[in-house]
């Protein structure tokens, strides 16, 4: 964690991959700023960082999808300039992207050799193709029927087929972008076994992930990026979880803070207050492959923060609370009355509202006017046959444009033309118009400027003061601490603990985010189907 503890990589033999001073400029943004990174033979090197840290940009550069503005990439000592994925593969650098890019309707063998089928006189040589596919699978140590179509395989096996495909072109370097994000515990185990086997064969593996425990289970070294710059590189053994989390988030964390005061209070967050039922309560709410059962409650006039790193299950939990996904276990109660499972309409009728994480793809109708976007939820709750009179729509739009200081040329401006902050305000206005009991906000301040962010934060405090129950998801720890009465900390898709009152400060949350789980099987701390 201190500079002295950083790994000093001896330059005896050139590393397998040596990235030096890579800069990547997009119009108006510097995504990577003089980042260096190296990978040795037979090493699994984790690349970590929060959203916007530059991980995926670096992966794209290694994969040849993007050319860096400046900097060099050396492979075994010789400089390479990959111009395409295929070009990078020809150099022996293979990348498996997060979205598994296999052809679902083709067979395993066809997928592994797709685009580089062995041919003679333009005709595919099937026996040779099958032999090559079988060889690639053997390197991973898995046995799959070569003739099965990919779509009928479980996700983990598809992932392994994608890796086999990457290995088929004599890969020396394997780049894995979030390979475990859709895998469950045992599937992750299978994948890790295969990765260890590849490591023994001398392959260098770059492992990009959000899951801290998985890094400690498999990675030899860890490089952390933040805001496009390299924070540092450590051997896994030399880096504590706390140090890793503070490196990722850029927030200092006193190691001593993990005393009993900040220890996880596991009990109280499930127990509703004695007198009145809480505005929103969930008991053992869980969903396979998505989140372990979690209990929580929020009362009127209270704000509950859901803290945790990206991928920790925050959004998944919010969607379960809102009925956008159906839970496998547990139930949601609003003001003491249970909600039907997995029904957004029932949740809205009971007074629950949610602004989704991705306001453009899940929230707004971009080519529709500000007015139409604002009235949409209220209109939906009234039903199609009771239209809001135009005068009422105009009044609502004018009211919220003024109340939330939405900077728009007029109520008939398409929402797509507004800035991110104003779009977020329109989304908030949509739900305020239905006067909800509970408001779930998923990353309400992501990607918006400082001024708008302050306004939205003020609005949240104001709503809370007026008696609304608020569930706030945010990657910004200071936001959680400033705006929330209590926080539920999620880690690796499971509730890590709760903090309230004085105990709720940034370092306590960080400590909880970083804490090692009690369970011994740290590799498998993803969603476990048996946990419910």
């Amino acid at each position: 964690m201190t500079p002295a503890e950083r790994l000093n990589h001896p330059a005896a033999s050139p590393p397998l991959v040596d990235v030096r001073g890579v800069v990547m400029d997009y119009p108006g943004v510097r995504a990577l700023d003089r980042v260096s990174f190296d990978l040795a033979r037979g090493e699994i090197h984790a690349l970590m960082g929060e959203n916007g840290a530059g991980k995926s940009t670096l992966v794209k550069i290694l994969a040849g999808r993007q050319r860096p503005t400046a900097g060099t990439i050396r492979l075994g000592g010789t400089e390479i300039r990959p111009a395409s994925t295929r070009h990078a593969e020809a150099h022996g650098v293979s990348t498996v992207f997060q979205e598994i890019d296999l052809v679902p309707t083709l067979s395993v063998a066809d997928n592994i050799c797709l685009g580089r089928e062995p041919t003679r006189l333009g005709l595919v040589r099937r026996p040779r193709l099958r032999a090559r596919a079988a060889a690639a699978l053997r390197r991973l140590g898995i046995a799959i029927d070569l003739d099965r179509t990919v779509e009928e395989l479980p996700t983990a096996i598809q992932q392994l087929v994608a890796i086999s495909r990457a290995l088929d072109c004599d890969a020396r370097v394997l780049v894995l972008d979030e390979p475990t994000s859709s895998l469950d515990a045992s599937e992750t185990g299978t994948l890790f076994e295969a990765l260890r086997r590849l490591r023994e064969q001398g392959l260098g593996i770059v492992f990009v992930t959000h899951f801290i425990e998985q890094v400690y289970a498999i990675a030899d070294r860890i490089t952390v990026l933040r805001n496009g710059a390299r924070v540092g590189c450590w051997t896994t053994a030399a880096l504590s979880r706390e140090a890793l989390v503070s490196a990722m988030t850029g927030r200092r964390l006193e190691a001593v803070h993990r005393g009993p005061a900040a220890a996880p209070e596991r009990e109280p967050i499930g127990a509703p207050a004695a007198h009145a039922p809480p505005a929103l309560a969930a008991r053992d709410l869980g969903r396979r492959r998505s989140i372990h059962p979690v209990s929580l409650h929020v009362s009127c006039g209270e704000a509950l923060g859901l803290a945790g790193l990206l991928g920790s299950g925050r959004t998944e939990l919010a969607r379960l609370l809102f009925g956008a996904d159906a839970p496998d276990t547990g139930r949601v109660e609003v003001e003491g009355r249970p909600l039907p499972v997995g029904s957004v309409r029932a949740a809205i009728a009971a007074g629950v509202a949610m602004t989704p994480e991705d306001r453009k793809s899940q929230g707004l109708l971009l080519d529709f006017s500000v007015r139409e976007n604002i009235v949409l939820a209220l209109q939906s709750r009234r039903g199609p046959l009771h239209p809001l009179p135009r005068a009422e729509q105009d009044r609502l739009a004018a009211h919220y444009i003024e109340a939330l200081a939405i900077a728009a040329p007029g109520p008939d401006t398409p929402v797509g033309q507004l800035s991110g902050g104003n779009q977020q305000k329109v989304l908030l206005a949509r739900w305020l118009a239905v006067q909800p009991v509970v408001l779930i906000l998923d990353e309400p301040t992501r990607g918006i400027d400082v001024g708008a962010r302050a306004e939205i934060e003020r609005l949240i405090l104001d709503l809370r003061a007026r008696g609304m129950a608020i569930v706030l998801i945010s990657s910004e720890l200071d936001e959680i601490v400033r705006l929330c009465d209590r926080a539920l900390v999620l880690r690796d898709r499971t509730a890590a603990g709760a903090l309230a009152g004085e105990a709720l400060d940034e370092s306590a949350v960080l400590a909880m985010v970083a804490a090692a789980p009690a369970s011994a099987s740290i590799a498998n701390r993803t969603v476990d189907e048996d946990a419910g």
Partner: protein
Amino acid sequence: MATPAGQRSWHASPAVWPVLGIVSLVLLNALFDKLLPGGPGLFGPGAFLRLSMRDGVPAGALVDILNYGGAIAILALGMTPVIATRGVDLSVGSVMALAGAVAASLVVADVPSIAALATALAVGAACGLCNGVLVSFGGVQPFVVTLVLMVAGRGVAQLVTGSQITTFHDPLLEFVGLGRPAWLPLPMPFILATAMLGATVLALRRTALGLFTEAVGSNPEAAALVGVRSRLLVAAAYVFCGLCAALAGLIAMANIKGADPFNAGRNAELAAIFAVVVGGTSLAGGRMCLLGAFAGAFLLQALTTTMYARNIGADVAPLPQALAILAVCIVGSPPVAAMLGRRRKRTP
């Protein structure tokens, strides 16, 4: 009223392009009549603009456009909400043939004509329900679902009529296509189409159904997250489309006083899709313009009538027709529209 057309200024409504197209076609025809040597002049016998009285009702090329454009307009009105939900209905032509076959066969079998009409409309709605349920609840692609009915529907129609053209004499059935009400001496198909336009605009714009339909097509995920009943809406759009197709089929049947299961509604689905697209509704779904689809249908008919008026043979006619359609589409395409929009802004 909450119509998008009402919110926009007139030149921003997509309906303006087909309307301009119709106007320029009519002017072009008048110009030919006036300038061509030996032409009839502006209002001479046989001129495009000439309105004569035949059997006490107005007749002429302009009346022809209203008459024969009516059925396409009704199809286009039904197709518009379907396309707005990112779907398409290829089966409307076959549903037309089927509805005609059902009505004609029932009347020939001495069923009261009003019951025959009602049954035919119900058959159309049922076809739409099959499409809608398979698309929205079954999750099958609209193209595939409606293609199946496009092929099967015509076969069933032939089965109903025993693979022949069923002719009939029935005043009510004939009135649907050939009627000219005494109080309004206009072609019945045009009156029906206008009534359908009014009813559809009322149903979609005076309620929130139109907004929800557009929301589902524009951003299905966002619509689901505000609690819009997407599946029900999508299914309803297909039911309405089937109903419209049946009505158009009755008009086509009345026009020839017989049900022709082989040719009734042939290529009608293409005409309807063209009318909708020219009218400013994107095949990608989202915003729809009912008035634009309505005008687009009459633009298509104006083109056909022009071909007849100019004595262009049926073998050559598709070419100028296709070129005119291409021109309208290019003028309405986003880059050109943006260019025109910029120019408009520069000259206040």
